[in-house]
């Protein structure tokens, strides 16, 4: 027989050996987990602060006060001559291009010569904001002089929120992408919410547990893990090539993203339905309600917060998704705001992608500003989801 090691007598009845080493382990584990959280948070902090640092300046835009000579020749033939030669490179070509339109709207401007506040060129804007730019030293000297005369001003960038994309960075805005996102997501929800919720109700409440429903279930769960780009291919093949939905439109984007979010909504709705206590169903049946009355009147109201939460999260998912849109032509240059779901549209995430690939500083800064807006929308959506969850779970507190 093995000889037992003799143990020292304990000092008091409550002494436990190895207590210290055990508590050291738990202490270490606790601090390790705190460290990992700190690590993750610091990445988030670095990302957000970087985006903020780059993006905040996009919310201001440089304006420049220069003399404008609006002659008939400038209006009809060459608007560039309205600006003095020295200043031509400093003002936005978008403004110059709009000059004839401006004169058409207010004919009194014709044959006047006065100092006007004009949108500055993006390189000037970058120079004023202290970022790298391609201005020549001669131009810089002119700007410095103008600045000394208080003829250069940073104003709130209203263009960013009122215009679509543009080839002139200082005139590029986010509005058409915002509008496109709203329309696309509207189509997405119109498609995936009713279909998803009804599928889930059928599977959870009506379908008998059979081989067929099991196969459907497995397929839905697999569908949830299909890479989004494949949904883009599907959208291209089915919606554009077979059905003939217009390319780049909010309709085709919404349908494609709808297919993508469908399994998420189905799965979250089923979870919400499953969390409704069976006692509620029994109570309904015992009162002679049929299945539809029972589901509609008793189960759905209880499951609704869960369904809403799942839908909002899938909506946030759809807003942020880019890859399926690549294949259906939504990631492209769209200067005009769409007004119909069949118009060519871009969405926020696609606009970010387009701008991110541009070399000019003004586009880089707009990319970050757009990211900030997108993140803001996400945060708001998630907060709504959390609010719904906490509010209704309190109201429907049920054992």
């Amino acid at each position, binding site marked *: 027989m093995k000889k037992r090691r003799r143990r020292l007598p304990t000092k008091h009845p409550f002494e436990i050996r190895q207590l210290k080493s055990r508590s050291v382990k738990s202490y270490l584990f606790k601090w390790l987990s705190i460290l990992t959280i700190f690590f993750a948070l610091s990445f988030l902090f670095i990302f957000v602060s970087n985006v903020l640092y780059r993006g905040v300046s996009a919310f201001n835009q440089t304006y420049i006060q220069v003399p404008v000579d609006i002659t008939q020749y400038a209006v009809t033939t060459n608007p560039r001559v309205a600006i003095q030669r020295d200043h031509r490179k400093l003002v936005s070509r978008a403004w110059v291009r709009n000059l004839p339109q401006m004169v058409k709207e207010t004919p009194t401007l014709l044959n006047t010569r006065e100092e006007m506040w004009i949108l500055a060129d993006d390189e000037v804007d970058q120079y004023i904001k202290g970022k790298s730019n391609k201005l020549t030293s001669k131009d810089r000297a002119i700007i410095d002089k103008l600045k000394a005369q208080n003829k250069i001003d940073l104003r709130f960038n209203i263009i960013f929120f009122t215009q679509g994309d543009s080839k002139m960075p200082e005139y590029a805005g986010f509005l058409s992408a915002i509008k496109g996102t709203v329309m696309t997501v509207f189509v997405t929800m119109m498609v995936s919410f009713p279909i998803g919720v009804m599928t889930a109700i059928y599977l959870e409440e009506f379908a008998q547990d059979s081989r067929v429903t099991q196969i459907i279930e497995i397929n839905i769960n697999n569908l949830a893990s299909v890479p989004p780009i494949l949904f883009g291919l599907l959208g291209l093949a089915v919606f554009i090539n077979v059905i003939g939905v217009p390319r780049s439109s909010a309709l085709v984007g919404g349908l494609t993203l709808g297919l993508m979010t469908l399994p998420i909504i189905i799965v979250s709705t089923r979870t919400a339905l499953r969390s409704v206590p069976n006692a509620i169903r029994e*109570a309904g*049946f015992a009162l002679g309600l049929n299945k539809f009355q029972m589901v509609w009147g*008793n189960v759905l109201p209880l499951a609704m917060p869960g369904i809403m939460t799942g839908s909002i999260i899938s909506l946030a998912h759809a807003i942020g998704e880019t890859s399926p849109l690549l294949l259906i032509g939504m990631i492209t240059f769209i200067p005009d705001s769409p007004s119909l779901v069949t118009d060519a549209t871009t969405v926020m995430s696609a606009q970010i992608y387009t701008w991110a690939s541009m070399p000019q500083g003004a586009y880089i800064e707009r990319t970050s500003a757009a990211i900030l807006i997108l993140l803001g929308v996400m945060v708001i959506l998630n907060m709504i989801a959390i609010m719904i969850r906490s509010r209704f779970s309190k109201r429907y507190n049920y054992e």
Partner: protein
Amino acid sequence: MNNRIKASVRDLNLWYDEGAKQILYSIDMDIYAHQVTALIGASGCGKSSLLRCFNRMNELINGCKVRGEIVVDGKNIYDKDVSEVAVRTKIGMVFQKPNPFPKSIYDNIAHAPKIHGRVKRGLMCDKLVEESLRRVSLWEDVKEKLKEMGTSLSGGEQQRLCIARAIALKPDILLMDEPTSALDPISTQHIEEAIVELKKSYTIIMVTHNLQQAKRIADRVAFFHKGDLIEYNTSHEIFTHPQDKRTQEFIKDKYNQNG
């Protein structure tokens, strides 16, 4: 004592799992009108399953099979031309755990009668709600807060609300599956008082684990053992002169245990 037969069970057999597991073996018993009939027996003896045969709730379970008849007022509820919805409106049920709908107290009661077209919104509906709540002596406690959630009431009040909800449909028979097992003694007393009141208007069949309760409020008691109906007699006979040895043992054990 009124001895009119309200319902009779004829040669009733029940299987679960597609006939693999037999739960009830050839049950024959008569239920008398305006009496409280208590079903007692050890756990798993089939008393709750029998209760659920009365309103065809067993049909909700996959692989459940019923053979035999339950004749209520001269009609077998398992006949092909009888729908389970009609059966369940005529034969109400109260469950072990209070399960009010997550609706207001008012809507808890008015929901089913509205759906069945018994009442429309308005005065008649208000009256039905008041009457149902009065019958379970809950009206005085909740008349000020009918708009509050039914789930905000205490456990005992919730159970009385569930009884009120069941009787709002004016059923003939009221089934109760251990209606007080989840409640404290005071709430239990309230429910028992309500049951004694209710039997004037309804026929009540209840499953109970509590033999004292059966003795207090039941007129007739049926003792089940492993799916068989062993003994069925008036409450007095069962508790004073049980005929079968198994009944004697069960009552001796259980009664002392509960006491």
